């Protein structure tokens, strides 16, 4: 009973039990019981709409996440390596970090229309500054002595980048990716709620208008499960692989 899985599940089980109990006592349509939610979940799965909207949302998450990581890494590495660039972009960065996500989303929709590209752009723009900050730290921490080894042994620029430089950045990239996933899927839901006609955020909005709390919770649980799975089966193994040498 001391296995970590048991300990992890125990708190979840207790939570569901308490929820069921409170729902029974209150007995209101505004607080459906876990069983009601499970029922709604089964129906949405059977009709196919849950998987469709989930797929659409995940696609947006993947595209905007990749875009934000790519752009954020390039800017972060450049800023970490050039004091001048760092100084000149730093104020913009602070600004970017502090603009509310909602503002970027609204502005993107107003300027670029209620389009897919505007939605993706709004999400990416929200995430890029935090990627830049993390990667910049990493780029500053890169060991110049190891780069000197690469230079003395005349490794090609490509080898130096992929085998000496990026491995040192890897923990920072992982940190950026981890916080990135957590942030981006939340923003994607808002983007969908405000200006898309599909995706989990759009569905939640519709359910909200019908006060269909069971469906809201069903979608939420499903979506959270997918994110947990990504964390457990993609991010954590990648992280383990990258830090295997730290034993």
């Amino acid at each position, binding site marked *: 009973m001391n296995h970590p899985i048991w300990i992890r599940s125990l708190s979840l089980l207790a939570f569901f039990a308490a929820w069921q109990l409170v729902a029974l006592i209150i007995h209101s349509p505004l607080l459906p019981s876990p069983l009601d939610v499970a029922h709604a979940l089964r129906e949405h799965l059977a009709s196919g709409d849950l998987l469709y909207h989930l797929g659409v949302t995940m696609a947006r998450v993947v595209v905007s996440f990749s875009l934000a990581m790519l752009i954020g890494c390039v800017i972060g590495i450049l800023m970490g390596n050039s004091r001048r660039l760092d100084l000149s972009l730093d104020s913009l960065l602070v600004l970017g970090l502090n603009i509310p996500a909602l503002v970027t989303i609204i502005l993107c929709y107003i300027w670029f229309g209620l389009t897919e590209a505007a939605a993706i752009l709004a999400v990416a723009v929200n995430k890029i500054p935090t990627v830049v900050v993390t990667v910049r730290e990493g780029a500053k921490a890169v060991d110049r002595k190891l780069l000197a080894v690469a*230079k003395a*042994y005349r490794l090609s620029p490509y080898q130096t980048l992929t*085998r000496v430089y990026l491995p040192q950045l*890897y923990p920072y990239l992982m940190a950026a990716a981890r916080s990135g996933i957590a942030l981006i899927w939340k923003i994607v839901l808002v983007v969908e709620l405000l200006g898309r006609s599909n995706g989990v955020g759009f569905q939640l909005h519709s359910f909200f208008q019908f006060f269909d709390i069971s469906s809201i919770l069903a979608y939420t649980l499903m979506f959270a499960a997918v994110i947990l799975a990504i964390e457990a089966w993609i991010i954590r193994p990648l992280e383990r692989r990258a830090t295997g*040498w730290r034993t």
Partner: protein
Amino acid sequence: MSRLQVLIEDKRFDAHGAVLSHLEFAADDGEFIALVGPSGAGKSTLLHILAGLDSRYQGSMLWDGRPMYGKDSNPPRLGMLFQDPRLMPWMSVRDNIELVMKGQHGAAALADALLQEVGLGQWVDAWPGQLSGGMQRRVALARAFAVKPQLMLMDEPFVSLDLPTANRLRESLLALWQRYRPLVLFVTHDLREALAMADRVLFLSAMPSRILLDYRVTERHSRDLDSQDIAGLQNRLLAEHPGLLSGLLGGVEA
């Protein structure tokens, strides 16, 4: 014409005086040359320039009569040992060596053979962090020879090691050098180490450094730093040139 011809007219770091000035020497294949001088005499700076890590100097470095770096250059295959091992901690010991071999044919086999030779045959798959400092330096030594170097630059590679470990590493180095015969430039501040290892010792002056004395080591019968032989060589040399090491005696700075 000598294989390596070095003339550093002037090297200075921003807003400081010259570190190297009119430093000139030539060397040939298979020579084992020690560079000896007081701390801060710019020995490391000289090696960094020779390794192509620092190009802000005035002067010329020729390999076979052609510039070693820059345009129309003819760089020698270069092995380098730094004061610290400088292994990539995220790569296995073998991968560290294969890295500098740049995917040449049979790299893995040669890497394993070299590691065997420096006594690390059991450790090819280990992470550098699992090895002791002395073992890490062995890996760095194997790495330096993995490129089949024509020129080997060593910047006090055995400093801050305990005596037995340093002695074993010196033996490994000499064995590898005798096998591959690169031109070695070995920086040390320990005169006994220089006299025990090298055929030729270049003494550097204090800053701005130039070559004070180009001394050929003859009549050496032992390579043991603590032998009578080396002590005798050292005493004779210092008797002849009392000012040679001002501030330096037997590797201990006064």
